[in-house]
């Protein structure tokens, strides 16, 4: 698949169809990849496709609002964000070539904790599991440990949108319920929930890793950064942190695809996807809609229907 990806990228760059291919290159260690922006057919040879390709590269589409056409390498789950960005007029469908990769799941870095990282030479997929080659041999990590939890519960067979498909796609059975963590959480009483989040948000250092890693957080100026009308204090007190996170999440209602990049970026391990999952359930219940799964429908909070079941407030 990696070779196929490289030759497709070369073709797109050589023909001049796209100015750049946004993909993954080898990172500074064999268990890391890094986003890469190939501009020449030679640079396309740096592109990789392996279990370390965790980043959701759709994050680079809205900010790159350049008029130049680009291609972007996406996992089927990442495609959902592009669908949302197109619906929200942040990405011009005509100006982007979507290269969808079939994906067995991507690496949960925690799975490597028993292996000396300095000895790792490669991390590859093999029969739906992950094989780590070290200087002293090979270790196979079973699927349920090797992949991020979002991958274990992934049921996306086909990408919702694509221009190029690489690899085999087809039906896919999720190995678990993606909302299981929400069910656990909902067993808590309101007071316990409040205490839980107070403790979580107390940890927040306001680095904004969550916001910057989020493909859907593309506002030119985030409400929390506004100085003239200061909606939220820059102080890292529990109230301000709480206000920042909850407001950000509410802004993502019906738009968050659950890619989990916010949680992956967070250096303080705040379980942000628990909030987004809870919100996704609300959107499913109230509007029978899921972010990123239908390219044709209007954004759920960006449209109005005369058949709205809720009464109009008087």
């Amino acid at each position, binding site marked *: 698949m990696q070779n196929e990806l490289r030759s497709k990228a070369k073709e797109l760059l050589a023909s001049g169809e796209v100015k750049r291919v946004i993909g993954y290159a080898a990172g500074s260690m064999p268990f890391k990849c890094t986003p890469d922006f190939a501009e020449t057919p030679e640079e396309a040879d740096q592109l990789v496709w392996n279990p370390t390709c965790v980043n959701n590269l759709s994050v680079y589409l809205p900010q790159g609002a350049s008029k130049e056409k680009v291609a972007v390498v996406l996992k089927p789950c990442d495609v959902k964000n592009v669908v949302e960005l197109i619906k929200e007029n942040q990405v011009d469908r005509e100006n982007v070539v979507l290269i969808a990769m079939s994906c067995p799941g991507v690496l949960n870095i925690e799975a490597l904790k028993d292996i000396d990282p300095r000895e790792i030479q490669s991390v590859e997929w093999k029969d739906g599991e992950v094989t780590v080659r070290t200087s002293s041999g090979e270790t196979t990590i079973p699927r349920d440990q090797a992949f991020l939890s979002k991958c274990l519960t992934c049921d996306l067979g086909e990408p919702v949108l694509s221009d190029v498909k690489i690899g085999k796609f087809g039906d896919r059975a999720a190995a678990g319920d993606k909302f299981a963590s929400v069910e656990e959480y909902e067993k808590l009483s309101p007071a316990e929930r409040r205490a839980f989040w107070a403790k979580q948000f107390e940890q927040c250092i306001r680095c904004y890793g969550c916001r910057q890693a989020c493909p859907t957080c593309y506002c030119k100026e985030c409400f929390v950064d506004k100085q003239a009308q200061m909606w939220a*204090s820059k102080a890292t007190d529990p109230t301000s942190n709480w206000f920042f996170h909850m407001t950000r999440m509410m802004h993502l209602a019906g738009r968050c695809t659950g890619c989990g990049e916010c949680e992956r970026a967070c250096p303080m391990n705040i379980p942000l996807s628990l909030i987004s999952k809870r919100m996704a359930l609300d959107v499913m219940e109230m509007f029978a809609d899921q972010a990123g799964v239908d390219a044709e429908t209007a954004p759920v909070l960006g449209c109005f229907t005369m058949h709205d079941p809720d009464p109009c407030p008087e």
Partner: protein
Amino acid sequence: MRTQFVEARIISKQDIAPWLKSLAGKYDILAPVTENGVTTFKTIDDPSAIDLVSQPKSLREAFTPETEQLFEYKLSGPSAEVKDPVVETKDRLIFGARACDAAALKYVDAVYSMVKPVDTLYFDRREHTVIAGVFCDNPAWSCFCTEVNDFLTNPVEMDVYFTDIGEKYFVQAYTSMGEKLLEASQFKPATDADSKAAEAARQKAMSKLPAKAAHDTECLTYDWNHPMWAKLSEKCMGCGICAFLCPTCHCFDMQDCAKGSCGTRFRCWDTCQFEKFTLMGHGHNPRPSRKERTRQRVFHKFKYSVERYEMLGCVGCGRCIAACPVNIDIEKIVNELEKPAAVEAESA
């Protein structure tokens, strides 16, 4: 060579808890504690909660809190009443500090004392803190402290230094304060065998780490116009993870929290990686894109710090490398900048 006070001592691992408990009346004890998968220095009551294995977050919060009140004010007509914050005066002992984090304090000391008057809030904490560090015997994959300095084996800003030698720690004092600490009954004289075991533990850890590089002189040749800056700015997402995990990053913003004619002024962490950091009142931004902002971080750590304080502003703790969501690796960056080709292009 820094002076090593008194003869080396040993302390049995079982005696750490009683020793710390015996100090609890005199000091607030700060030590690394893991909660929710994150290890941070916290004031502890129970020494059994200490986690010396996981890589902790830096000591930054312990000396420059994320949010810190500077003063309270009350306006009345043309005059204002200004009240200083109540400062903590209780002595603190930080147990389990890493050599990189102690060395970072030397740098931050230089920053906060360069312009008089010195930063009293910071130095008040510094003067009331004793540091008992622990040798890092299992450096993370991202660690490169030995590449920037030799403080791992020759510690700075450390009062006492513990090295794990199995059932016990080999302990050395580096200040008179540290010497006093070692008078406690739990510390016994070290034998030659203990000393050799400590040396072996150090060699083992050192073998995993890179050799000393000449960053402190090479930095003067760094290319302002290197094509790398444009490449980095494409992938950098513009968050502040690197800066907020960094033990030497110290930049802050000042804000008021006002209620009518009264209020408080506080400072809170800020970073050159944020767009608004250099945004001027009249709307101009001298670092308008991520190209200027990523370059600033590298130049500040490696070049400006050497020019200003005669020391590198990076202690090689590698936290920024390990946590960057897009794998921006400052060690690779400076080594790339120091490649002969880059130097030649600069001089051409």
